[in-house]
């Protein structure tokens, strides 16, 4: 990997179908349940603006949908909006990939930025495992494992 890229990869296997998982990831009321009350605002098509809002309505992150290919892959061009030192890093890319395997769907989330030792990628790294673990639990058992985030971000 190039040294001027910071990339983190998160993988979880969920017993569901690609269509159900795709719908879970792109339906705001559902997203709210596994993403600690955060709201996604977008029209879900390539080129449309994208925003992630805190429960109180402040903008946490913003950008646009860079690619949208249901039900296999979408990419969000993503910039932090509430911490000046993270916003200064500019845009990152967050890719969601869904791959059906034997009775499960492999979900891979790749969050990367063209920058060495990115603080943004570090800051979100505590959140992704919790969000994905919650999503898995919600789809498999109907209940989110955790209602509020543990730790920072």
């Amino acid at each position, binding site marked *: *990997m190039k040294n001027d890229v910071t*990339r*983190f990869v998160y*993988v979880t296997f969920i017993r569901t179908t690609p269509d159900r998982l795709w719908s879970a990831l792109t339906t705001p009321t559902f997203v709210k349940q596994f993403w600690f009350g955060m709201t996604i605002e977008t029209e879900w098509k390539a080129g449309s603006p994208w925003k992630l809002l805190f429960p109180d309505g402040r903008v946490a992150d913003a950008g646009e949908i860079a690619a949208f290919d249901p039900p296999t892959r979408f990419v969000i061009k993503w910039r932090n909006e509430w911490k000046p030192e993270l916003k200064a890093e500019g845009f990152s890319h967050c890719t969601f990939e869904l791959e059906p395997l034997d009775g499960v769907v492999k979900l891979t989330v*790749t969050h990367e930025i063209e920058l060495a030792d990115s603080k943004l990628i570090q800051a979100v790294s505590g959140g992704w*495992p919790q969000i994905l*673990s919650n999503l898995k639990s919600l789809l*498999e058992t109907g209940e989110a494992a955790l209602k509020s985030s543990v730790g920072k971000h």
Partner: protein
Amino acid sequence: MQVFTCIFLQTQKVNMDEMDKVFKALADPSRRRLLDRLHVKNGQSLNELRDGLEMTRQAVTQHLALLEQANLVAVQRKGREKLHFLNPVPVYEIYARWIRKFEQQPLSALHDLKVNLERKSDEK
């Protein structure tokens, strides 16, 4: 209702199997070392990971395969190169299931008491 319970129990059983793989993968010091190396620098190739380790290429390959099966390592291909990334999701699940659940006030009070008493006896 019965069907639902059955699906729920089945899901729990599969999740147990997944967690068994994670604990087994973590039980080996060489594999933990590889994870530590990925924690320091994510996205390394096999050769980078091997650098400075007294392990054969074959041993490292086998350990990485087990870590990948346990979903502790995710692999991405870039051209001819295979890059290895630390996947923290299963580690978080261990934390949620086996640590957070037991992290309660009385336990930390007991721990503080032990630390205090031991410090006092050291000072004597």
